[in-house]
């Protein structure tokens, strides 16, 4: 990406300076100019420059070689190209000795200068790529890997920072694909437990007995197939954090076991008689409405209160669309090299299409869409056509299939429930969306006996 590289042209002659700068800008570089050696030395600290073109003979006390020597102190990584109209062996030797990368005599062939610049930039790109990859390795699960500039998310980040070193349980709620696990990781890796294990368990993926054994471990012979003793995830997470995803799906028996661990920090392995004590922070997540499940009696209220000490609600992507351009660019930057594609950017029209889409699958769906577009894209820019697969599903064109046996009252109930969920129980916001006044909404909530949240 040439536009990421800054070049400075230093020459006292305006036509020379501006024409070379313009020529380099046509190639995509960001070019600044300086009218003298002194001017260049003053401007140089303001940015990171990849290349300096410095005219050898300049009036004003500081000539090209002196300018280069000062610049090299400020930017030891930068390449300096000394430019002169009159080549002598002596000046060339001096320039190279003092650290000039190249020495060119003007006027020079366009091809020569193109090759020279592209060769230097190629090396700079490799060096930068290397640095980025190194940073990525250390930042993989860093808190800042969550990309967002939305105020709701920024509030969550600040809450995460505040609670990261506490032992209190955290309940993360949000639709599928909003990044619940990333927030859990952020809490763990930004707190005191960062050096200890972070253990992840998806509660919906396993049957009750398997999940029990997975969480608490088992003794040899405790059930058919238990050929050896096995430590559970709670033991493995000792000193660290256990993240229980889809907690709303666990059985009544496991709810009780979990409640005991939370209360006493102790448990038995399946088939075990020895009580095991652990120091584990519990973070749970669900895309279900647990408060509603408590009301319906499918989730223990005492466990709910234990889990819900700190509550984090992650907004769906449709409520923070300002993040879409940022996320798309992050995905392009990461996925492009992963799938070996030279895709560098997204067109304005394509971005508009993504902004108009509702993203029911949230950030995960956006990431998958960008990946699919990159894989099938035949050029460097993602266009509207590359996202044509979204058109058939966009909210504007989506066909609304109403079940045959649905009554108007049921339909009304459904719409109000969904809107209240989206607004997290905010009556004013929900009534605005629904286009009815607040008192009418209250009447409907009472009539249908709906939970406000």
């Amino acid at each position, binding site marked *: 990406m*040439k*536009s990421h590289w800054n070049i400075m042209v230093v020459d006292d*002659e305006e*036509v*020379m300076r*501006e*024409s*070379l700068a*313009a*020529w380099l*800008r*046509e*190639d*995509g570089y960001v070019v600044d100019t300086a009218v003298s050696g002194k001017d260049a030395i003053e401007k140089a600290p303001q940015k990171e420059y990849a290349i300096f073109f410095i005219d050898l003979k300049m009036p004003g006390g500081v000539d090209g070689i002196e300018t280069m020597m000062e610049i090299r102190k400020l930017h030891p990584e930068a390449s300096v190209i000394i*430019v002169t109209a009159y080549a002598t062996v002596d000046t060339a030797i001096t320039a190279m000795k003092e650290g000039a990368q190249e020495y060119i005599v*003007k*006027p*020079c*062939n*366009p*091809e020569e*200068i*193109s090759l020279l610049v592209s060769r230097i930039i190629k090396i700079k790109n490799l060096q930068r790529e290397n640095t980025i990859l190194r940073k990525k390795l250390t930042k993989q699960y860093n808190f800042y890997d969550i990309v967002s500039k939305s105020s709701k998310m920024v509030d969550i980040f600040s809450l995460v920072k505040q609670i990261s070193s506490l032992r209190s349980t955290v309940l993360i709620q949000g639709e599928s694909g909003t990044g619940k696990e990333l927030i859990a990781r952020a809490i763990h890796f930004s707190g005191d437990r960062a050096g200890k294990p972070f253990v992840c368990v998806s509660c919906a993926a396993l049957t009750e007995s398997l999940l029990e054994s997975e969480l608490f471990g088992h003794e040899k012979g405790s059930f058919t197939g238990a050929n050896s003793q096995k430590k559970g995830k709670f033991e493995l997470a000792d000193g660290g954090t256990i993240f229980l995803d889809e907690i709303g799906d666990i059985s009544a028996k496991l709810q009780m076991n979990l409640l005991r661990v939370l209360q006493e920090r102790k448990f038995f392995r399946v088939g075990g008689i020895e009580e095991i004590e652990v120091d584990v922070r519990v973070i749970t997540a669900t895309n279900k409405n647990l408060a509603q499940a408590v009301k319906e009696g499918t989730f223990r209220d005492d466990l709910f209160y234990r889990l819900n000490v700190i509550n984090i609600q992650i907004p769906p992507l449709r409520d923070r669309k300002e993040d879409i351009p940022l996320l798309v660019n992050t995905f392009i930057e990461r996925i492009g090299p992963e799938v070996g594609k030279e895709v560098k950017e997204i*067109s*304005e*029209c394509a971005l508009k299409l993504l902004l108009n889409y509702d993203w029911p699958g949230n950030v995960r769906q956006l990431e998958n869409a960008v990946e699919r577009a990159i894989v099938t894209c*035949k*050029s*460097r*820019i993602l*266009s509207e056509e590359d996202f044509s697969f979204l058109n058939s599903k966009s909210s504007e064109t989506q066909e609304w299939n109403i079940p045959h046996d649905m009554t108007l009252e049921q339909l009304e109930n459904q719409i109000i429930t969904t809107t209240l969920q989206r607004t997290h129980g905010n009556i004013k916001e929900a009534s605005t969306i629904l286009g009815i006044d607040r008192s009418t909404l209250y009447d409907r909530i009472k009539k249908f006996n709906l939970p406000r949240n």
Partner: protein
Amino acid sequence: MSSLYILPIGEVYAEILKNLEIGLWETLGFDIAYLPKMEQTDFALDKTRSQFSSTLILKEMMKRIPHDAVRVLGITENDLFIPMLSFVFGHAQVSGKLALISTARLRQEFYQLPKNDELLFLRTVKEALHELGHTFGLLHCADTTCAMSLSNGIQQVDFKKDDYCRDCRILFNESSKNYKMNGVANFKMSSEKLKL
């Protein structure tokens, strides 16, 4: 209605202008109009190099931009240079209003080869598209068949097409949409008409 203006700088072969007009109209989709010829060009002549400074010509062109101009394309038969380089095929203001091309090195005769007008006309359109592309914010393209690819020699000019690649076309369309009355695709003419 806004137009893309062609500004002849000094004497320019009429057939070149006619072919350029059609080529630009066909590929870019703008109305094409002419500005009166710039008679005096001596101010830009560097006697020691026997070449004309593209920077000084662009400065002079600045004074002649009509208010309804989409862009102004200067065309000269004189050889152009910038001080750093031995020559340039053209020069433009990136995301500006002005572009300038020279036909001097697009002629076969410059390379001691027999005259070939068809080839000259085609090369002129390619270079005009290249420099005008810069005025719409397009930068050099890595696709060597795209009109926006960098040409340091005549072989590279001949290798590229007289149109933008898919990516540059997307960027061009987005950047020029405010000036367009119709989509560029509607402007495609038959190749027979182009040949005249």
